[in-house]
């Protein structure tokens, strides 16, 4: 009799999390919890100026403080050829500044001391003389004639443009616009934001002179990429580098890049031959590490009167800060901006994109987002609502007219992506039903008569999750695939290792469920390990919702390899030929005699004690999975709001989320991911942004200025699901972690804009602070969020 898959913790079980057993006891092992014998502590001195020439650095007082072991400056790094490092986007980034500082918070010097307090004393004792230079905080300033050149360190860089890129069919798009009845236009800014995991970045570098081995414990979502980068930058042999990523207190993309602090701690450990710990403070994290978004859009949509979209034209200006260090596939200069409109059947589109340098922190990480797909979907859904309004059409109906039909998959988008599956109309219907769409529209009309402003916002989107396929996706030339290694022990217990790295997603729980599904080994009998490059198979790490689509697929594939070998062992034990053996969950049996069977555990025992002649002993294998396509989850997010016309304050009334991420491995964890994502969507729509004043001072350098929603502000969420299995993924799953963050913001903003419909206001840039909404309402004009921050933004 087949096993009950839910009982063994297989696919579909809301299995309680294994990792919680340590976290709820305070026994997690985060970077700052690790203490090595003889460990020293490093602190970083950062620039107070956004743009300045360094005239001198005097470190003598710091050296004089008892307990200070080493002071490092750019000059010293330069003497070892380490003042600059390569970024993930083929640019260079200063490790410690030599000539100039180019953003506020840039790393200028490091002090290594017996404890962190002394190291901070050391930083305060360093005297740096700066000569301030003109500052650029937005793309308009960066591209203005005569703008100061930010990257004068680079040969052949004569302006502040990082790239000028285009994709799509320009002339075809022009023809579509010539035939349009209506052209709808929208200009937007998606503000700079920061992933801001609760735990900051940090590292402990431990160079052992006796073995020449460098071990680096560090907060990395992609430890194997780091190992490759360290091998290249530090010119150390790769087998002598071990990167260990311990428990991570959140990542959200922030812990993908290589940061100067990591590099400095490594050099310090090599020089001092002692372990060196660097734990970033929150301000350092917010002002210097990977930001997200900061993209300006000019969009145009060619429309037929009946609501059909004929073509899309978009231009983006993206602000990359002082160094181009986006973590993104090298083929796509502005991430996956051109994945916009993938759920709509649009014949033709054209995108031009320009990236610029400014005096702001570098990083451009995909904050809970596949390579800028968040901006793409926000622009898409804001433009869709604006177009529906321009045509005076119902916003749900406008979407339905333009959706790709259920029978039209795989569907080639206007920008050339191939979407794999979906039931878009069904998702929308479930959402509209849940929110009570028709009733709400009536309520809204009634309320309006009494001077109350209600609004409803819809966001429907599909996005490409699970880079790569290796044909199109690479980082620094390393193809994007992932891996799993499964070792089944004699007694049928197992250990699984993957190239992914959990930061809270619960891999220790869900990965075992995939093995349980494939092999019938109870999930509780499977240990999952990740994050140690000496033991884990090579993989590209966890970000961009790629773990289930790629590593998860590798786990299914390696399990199937194990099952194939177990089948041979079963045939041997049952004394029949392999062709006569059938499989049911956890057990092989003889086709003609189903009572005669052996369990997977019995096969495992035989692999070590009773294998057939000529068979290699043991029961272990690995799999590298290069997906044929990305997975394309779909979602419909709907929010209703009430805006107070007296103050501009808006309250969320209801939020409904309908997610189709294919087959769900662990529904409890999937729902947790969706609720977390919705909260970040609400955060971006309502309060969370990093801006700058005209001198380049970062406004948002701590949690008093950078507002994250608490339990009090965060609305409740109502979740629904539609299941369309991914046709090319071995277990039919799709990515999910980022969907709500990607699709959610437009639902909130569209809701507020819907409440303001009829006032002539077309757009308010996020976050929709009450003063911005109030300004829009009272002055009946759009409100831009472009920095420098104006005083009335406070």
């Amino acid at each position, binding site marked *: 009799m087949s096993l009950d898959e839910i009982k063994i913790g297989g696919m579909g079980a809301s299995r309680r999390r294994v990792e919680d057993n340590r976290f709820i006891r305070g026994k997690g092992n985060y970077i700052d919890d690790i203490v090595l014998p003889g*460990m020293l502590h490093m602190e970083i001195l950062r620039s107070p100026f956004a743009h300045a020439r360094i005239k001198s650095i005097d470190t003598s007082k710091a050296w004089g403080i008892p307990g200070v072991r080493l002071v490092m400056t750019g000059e010293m790094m330069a003497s070892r050829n380490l003042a600059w490092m390569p970024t993930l986007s083929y640019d260079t980034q200063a490790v410690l500044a030599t000539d100039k500082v180019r953003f506020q918070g840039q790393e200028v010097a490091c002090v290594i001391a017996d404890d962190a307090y002394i190291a901070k004393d050391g930083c305060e004792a360093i005297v740096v003389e700066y000569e301030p230079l003109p500052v650029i905080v937005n793309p308009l300033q960066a591209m203005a004639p005569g703008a100061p050149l930010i990257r004068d360190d680079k040969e052949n860089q004569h302006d502040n443009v990082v790239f000028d890129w285009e994709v799509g069919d320009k002339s075809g798009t022009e023809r579509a616009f010539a035939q349009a009845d209506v052209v709808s236009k929208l200009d937007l800014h998606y503000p700079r934001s920061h992933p801001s995991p609760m735990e900051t970045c940090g590292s402990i570098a431990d160079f052992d002179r006796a073995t020449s081995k460098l071990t680096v414990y560090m907060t990395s979502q992609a430890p194997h990429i780091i190992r490759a980068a360290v091998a290249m930058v530090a010119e150390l042999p790769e087998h002598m580098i071990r990167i260990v990523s311990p428990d991570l207190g959140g990542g959200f993309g922030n812990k993908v890049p290589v940061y100067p602090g990591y590099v400095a701690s490594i050099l310090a450990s090599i020089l001092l031959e002692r372990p060196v710990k660097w734990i970033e403070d929150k301000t350092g994290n917010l002002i210097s590490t990977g930001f997200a978004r900061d993209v300006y859009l000019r969009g145009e949509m060619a429309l037929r009167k009946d609501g059909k979209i004929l073509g899309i034209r978009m231009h983006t200006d993206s602000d990359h800060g002082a160094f181009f260090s986006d973590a993104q596939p090298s083929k796509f200069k502005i991430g996956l901006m051109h994945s916009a409109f993938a759920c709509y059947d649009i014949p033709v589109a054209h995108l031009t994109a320009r990236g610029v340098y400014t005096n702001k922190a570098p990083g451009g990480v995909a904050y809970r987002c596949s390579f800028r797909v968040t901006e793409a979907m926000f622009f898409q859904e804001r433009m869709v609502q604006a177009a529906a309004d321009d045509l005076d059409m119902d916003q749900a109906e406008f979407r339905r007219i333009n959706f790709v039909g259920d029978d039209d998959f795989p569907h080639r988008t206007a920008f050339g992506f191939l979407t794999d599956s979906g039931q878009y109309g069904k998702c929308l219907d479930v959402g509209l039903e849940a929110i009570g769409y028709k009733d709400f529209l009536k309520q809204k009309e009634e309320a309006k008569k009494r001077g109350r402003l209600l609004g409803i916002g819809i966001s429907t989107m599909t996005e490409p999750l699970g880079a790569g396929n290796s044909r199109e996706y690479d980082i620094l030339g390393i193809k994007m695939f992932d891996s799993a290694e499964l070792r089944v022990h004699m007694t049928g217990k197992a250990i699984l290792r993957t190239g992914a790295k959990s930061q809270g997603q619960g891999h220790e729980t869900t990965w075992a469920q995939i093995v349980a599904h494939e092999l019938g080994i109870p999930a509780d009998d499977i240990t999952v390990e990740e994050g140690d490059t000496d033991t884990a198979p090579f993989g590209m790490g966890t970000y961009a919702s790629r773990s289930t689509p790629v590593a998860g697929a590798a786990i299914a594939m390696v399990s199937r390899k194990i099952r194939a070998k177990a089948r041979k062992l079963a045939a041997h034990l049952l004394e029949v030929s392999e062709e006569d053996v059938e499989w049911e969950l956890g057990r092989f049996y003889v086709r003609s005699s189903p009572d005669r069977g052996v369990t997977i555990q019995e096969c495992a025992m035989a692999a070590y004690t009773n294998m057939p002649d000529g068979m290699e002993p043991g029961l272990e294998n690995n799999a590298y999975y290069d997906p044929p396509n990305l997975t394309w989850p779909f979602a419909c997010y709907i929010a209703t709001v009430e805006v107070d016309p007296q103050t501009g304050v808006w309250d969320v009334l209801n939020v409904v989320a309908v997610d189709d991420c294919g087959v769900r491995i662990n529904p409890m964890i999937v729902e947790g991911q969706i609720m977390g994502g919705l909260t970040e969507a609400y955060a971006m729509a309502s309060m969370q942004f990093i801006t700058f004043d005209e001198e380049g001072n970062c406004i948002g350098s701590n949690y008093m200025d950078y507002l994250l929603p608490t339990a009090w502000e965060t609305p409740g969420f109502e979740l629904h699901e539609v299941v369309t299995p991914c046709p090319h993924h071995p277990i039919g799953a799709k990515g999910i972690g980022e969907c709500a963050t990607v699709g959610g913001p437009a639902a909130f903003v569209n809701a507020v804009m819907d409440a303001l419909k009829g006032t002539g206001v077309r757009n308010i840039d996020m976050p929709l602070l009450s003063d911005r909404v109030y300004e829009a309402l009272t002055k009946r004009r759009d409100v831009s969020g472009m920095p420098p921050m104006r005083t009335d933004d406070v």
Partner: protein
Amino acid sequence: MTSLNEEVFPEQASDIPVRTVTITVNGEKRSANVEPRLLLAHLLRQGFKMTGTHTGCDTTNCGACTVLFDGKPIKSCTMLAVQADGHDVMTIEGLASASELHPIQEGFKDEHGLQCGFCTPGMMLTAKALLDVNPNPTEDEIRWALSGNLCRCTGYQNIVKSVLWAAVKLRGQAAN
């Protein structure tokens, strides 16, 4: 922080002032010689090797470092160790008994009230302080009580459910 690394760094500058503090931590009296500027969070983590108290923001905003100070939740990243002299401190390590979990811990696991786990100890201790004085809180009361503790992963909804779960179990225990 002179006292903390004595085994590693026997040589210490003589002019750094040191104070002796005695704190009852999770029911056990602990003493340490500390620099007056040493933060309580660092004494707990590095001095007493209790790393369940996390430091997240350094500015009293995020609540990852929350401990119970004479039964009330405080942010230990902005309290000096010397201010805790003679007081009673409870950390996450003191929440479970030797053999079984506290209902709040069970609730967080059962309702998926955590993901990365970094905010969890502070979140659970704040919840304990609430349930100590209000054993039957409404959802709004829970949300308000937890509003000094930030979480980036969960969206709070399951945290609220976790606390409600614990409240039910604790009331059941009290009734028996």
